[in-house]
């Protein structure tokens, strides 16, 4: 069974915000909202959970630091502890200041890049991916709210029109 959704179009982000709040108050499930730019506070109004990307970034940073430390410890101290310009390569700690720039950069590198890749995976973004927005105008100046239909379709339509929707379309979601 394919489910029906109503797509309501808005032309103003303030109207959209109050519409989202109203629809949620009426206990309808908002499938998705398409906007041309980030609408401040929309995630809160929709009741979306906080992102955990920052936590992954912290963990990736720890990985980067460990990679840098173990790499340089092995290469500079264990494998071939040469005397290079009188720097003390007897232990990691003694020579550590020289390694700090690399440790720092590796931490940042891992944290940044792995977090970006995580973001792409989580939001399913990749080259040649087919665009998902139901209406090309949502990339320019229109906002679109998609509400799933359960039960009374007409009442939901009336509610959406009441919240200031400029256009309403009922489609089958595959």
């Amino acid at each position, binding site marked *: 069974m394919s489910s029906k959704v109503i797509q309501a179009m808005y032309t103003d982000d303030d109207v959209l915000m109050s519409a989202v709040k109203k629809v949620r108050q009426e206990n309808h499930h908002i499938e998705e909202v398409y906007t041309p730019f980030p609408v401040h506070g929309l995630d809160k109004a929709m009741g979306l959970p906080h992102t955990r990307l*920052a936590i992954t970034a*912290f963990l990736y940073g720890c990985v980067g630091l460990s990679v840098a430390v173990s790499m340089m410890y092995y290469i500079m101290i264990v494998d071939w502890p040469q005397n290079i310009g*009188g720097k003390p390569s007897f232990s990691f700690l003694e020579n550590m*200041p*020289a390694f*700090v720039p690399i440790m720092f950069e590796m931490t940042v590198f891992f944290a940044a890049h792995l977090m970006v890749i995580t973001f792409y995976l989580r939001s399913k973004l990749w080259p040649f991916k087919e665009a998902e927005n139901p209406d090309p105008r949502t990339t320019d100046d229109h906002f679109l709210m998609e509400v799933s239909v359960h039960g009374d379709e007409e009442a939901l339509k009336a509610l959406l029109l009441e919240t200031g929707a400029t256009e309403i379309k009922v489609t089958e979601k595959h």
Partner: protein
Amino acid sequence: MYTFSNRLRLFAIISFVLGAIMVGLSFADVPGSVEDMKAMEAAHGHGHDSGHGEATHDDGKTAHHDEHKTHAAHADKEHHGDAHGADVGHHDSAKHDEHKLAQLQNKPWAAVYVAAFFFMMISLGVLAFYAIQRAAQAGWSPVLFRVMEGITAYIIPGTIIIILLIIASVMHWNHLFHWMEPSLLDPTSENYDKLTVGKSGWLNGTFFIIRAVVYSGIWIAYRQISRRLSLKQDEASDNSNFKKNFRAAAVFLVLFLISESMMSWDWIMSFDHHWFSTLFGWYVFASMFVSGITVIALVTIYLKSKGLLEYVNNSHLHDLAKFMFGISIFWTYLWFSQFMLIWYSNIPEEVTYFITRIEDYNLPFFGMLALNLIFPLLILMNSDFKRLNWIIVIAGIVILFGHYIDVFNMVMPATVGPNWSLGMAEIGAILLFLGLFIFVVFTTLTKAPLLAKRNPFIEESKQFHY
């Protein structure tokens, strides 16, 4: 209007009096002569040998001593001799005893100087932060302006105390600044030191005091002008006072960066007058900036907990905590840049600075990294934690202690050498200035409403939400 609570006033007075007593006792406890010193050491269970060993040890690496000593290399050899337990170099022991005596006599002075500088620096850091907020026309901070103005009131007694301490040094009441020793400039003296002579155009008593007065004058002048304009704006019918304040802040920031940099050469770097570092001014600035922001956060939390700052919400605190976090990392960046460049190139005339600190001040020197970087880094990274009062208070106390240790590390090695401790003199001096600081700051807070009335950004600041 804020009224100075009796309990806090009592705390400030007790802290001041107790600190004054402790500092007084530690001044009384200083040995007056080499004989006194030895008698005290014997009483404390130190033999002559251990004292002697420490003194020699010190001479081998203290910058200002090995360079004007005729036997720098010899002192080093002696140090090795001692390590092997042989009693070499006893002919120099009288000199070493005197050297150690000078360091012990410096101890209470240095403790007072460190604490006086630390609290002055907090106030100056807040003044810089305040001027930046005004010059940047920040929309979030105007609700905190009166708190900042309260803290900057301490700049007046703070700088005056520093100037008095400097005058005491120039009058030779103490031996804090080694370059003030007249025999270093005397070609007939055995202490004659060419390097000091070379710098005497800058480092001489009269010019030193004049400069100190000029720096303090700039800071106090801006503080008073800005405060007056800020209070006038409350009653005004237009924004001309606000605009004047904006211009004053911009001019002050230019003058501040110049005067702060030179102040750090004078008031801190000249303790090690054979050593120099180009980023030192920035380093001292970062330290005062982060301590200042931390104190703003702590005073704000205190006043908020009394229900006096109606419009301050946890977004304001979040911003302050972000500054604490960011500037802590900035401080570490400068600390590391200074340390690593000198460690890497290992040029003898520069590296002595860090060798003294690593050998004699190992725990405070590296411990402050844990206090000033690792702790704030881990605890203030979380966005939710930055909104919790108790987290900010804990992080703030650790940061303030860490930056006290930072100033301690900058001043003590050149003044008391290896004879440092965090004892009665140091704690007493902290209490003394803490009491004074609280008294001055909170007295000023009672003098004006805690919310600036007609600031053009006050409405935005009241609504500020992150």
